[in-house]
């Protein structure tokens, strides 16, 4: 199971990649495996505001429908339109081609992008998936 070290994670199995003030967001390989083949992804609208911990879309697989939670606060700047035609990218390539949406995150007092304090490191996330069996 791949858990790239440079990403940030949530207990809801999203990953966040930061590039300046832009956070790219997707779901982890563990989540994709648990869901099975993804057949439909519903994403937030570009320009909409998302709130950390709140549902902002849905991931539908052969066997289930799951809410997609935003891991961060901010404004949606871009969504992965390729998932509309090929949602299986989420299974095949969860950390790159299977990214879902991008959010411009607010800055903290030091001019750094503000991520929620309870985000997990790769090591912490890996521990979480192991204890989940």
């Amino acid at each position, binding site marked *: 199971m791949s858990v790239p070290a440079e990403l940030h994670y949530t207990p809801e199995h999203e990953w966040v990649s930061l590039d300046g003030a832009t956070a790219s967001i997707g779901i982890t390989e563990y989540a994709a495996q648990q869901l099975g*083949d993804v057949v439909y992804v519903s994403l937030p609208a570009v320009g909409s505001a998302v709130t950390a911990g709140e549902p902002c879309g849905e991931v539908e697989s052969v066997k289930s429908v799951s809410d997609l939670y935003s891991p961060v606060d901010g404004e949606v700047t871009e969504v992965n339109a390729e998932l509309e035609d090929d949602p299986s990218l989420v299974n095949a390539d969860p950390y790159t081609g299977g990214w879902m949406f991008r959010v411009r995150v607010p800055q903290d007092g030091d001019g750094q992008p503000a991520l929620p304090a309870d985000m997990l490191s790769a090591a912490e996330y890996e521990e979480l998936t192991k204890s989940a069996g």
Partner: protein
Amino acid sequence: MTTPRQTPLHEVHERLGATMTSFAGWQMPLRYASETSEHLAVRRAAGLFDLSHMGEISVAGPGAGAVLDYALVGNLSALRPGRARYTMICAEDGGVLDDLVVYRLDADEFLVIANAANTDVVYEALADRARGHDARVTDATGDYALVAVQGPAAAGILAPLAGGLDLDGMKYYAGESGSVAGRRAWVARTGYTGEDGFEVFCRPEDAVPVWEALAAAGGPAGLVPAGLAARDTLRLEAGMPLYGNELGPDVTPFEAGLGRVVKFDKPGEFVGREALAARAASGPVRRLAGLTIGSRRIARHGYPVLADGSPCGTVTSGAPSPTLGVPIAMAFLDSADSEDRVLTVGIRGEAVPAQLTDLPFYRRRQ
């Protein structure tokens, strides 16, 4: 809640990295990798399934045929040894307690295959309905493992491993006792995928060698292990009902479009006859229909079906169809005149167009 039972193949599934799921009191493989790939492998080559959770109930003795004629809706005493029949067990009110495959192993013994979730109900009903007959009803689920090899390549994969079995001459819905990979087995040409294929009933201690031999022999032909997720989409494409979805205690065989399994012309009384005869005469108040869905979203069990915007039924099963490339569903529709109206399915608040289509969605080339 008791701990789910493990099949004799549990360690094999773990070694293969299967995603396991709790199903009807058993820990079963849901998928090994991609359920879509497993589905397509069964359509194009073959899939290997562990179905050891299914219930096996033995009905044996001189009165076994008479017990089944009384207990089930089919005419089982007319079944010849070595043949199988798809049938149902109903309650007095005509509601379906389970759908079954019954094998006549020999003149005096039948093996009744029940859905895992219903094994206890079926066993108790059969034991109750056997009273006063010269027959013994035994829950033999623990005596059998069940491995299925399904798909167009199944016969070619099984043949070199089969001893004392005439696979070429074996008709669909027939079975013989013989051996597979040197292990004693009852082998039947039956399945739940819409493909040609075989079900191998063996002793639990023989399940691993039987599985391993089939996996090794089938690998070059494209056989892959397949889980319950693929089994569900395969049976849905083939228009086969699933108990709990299309069948249940509030459904009669007629509403499910399976009235042909009820044999009113068989001799003697049977449980449910009166209610079923009334239902056959009045016609079903709802019917099972096939739908294709005009979106990538899946119309799932319990979602409402609307005709010209008014409720007209409920989805019983829905899934993407890997063969057709669109989502498909089965649904109970209230009336027969939905053909002329615009159908939609309410998928989490969105009205998604749906098209009536004949069942099954998929029929294999003969």
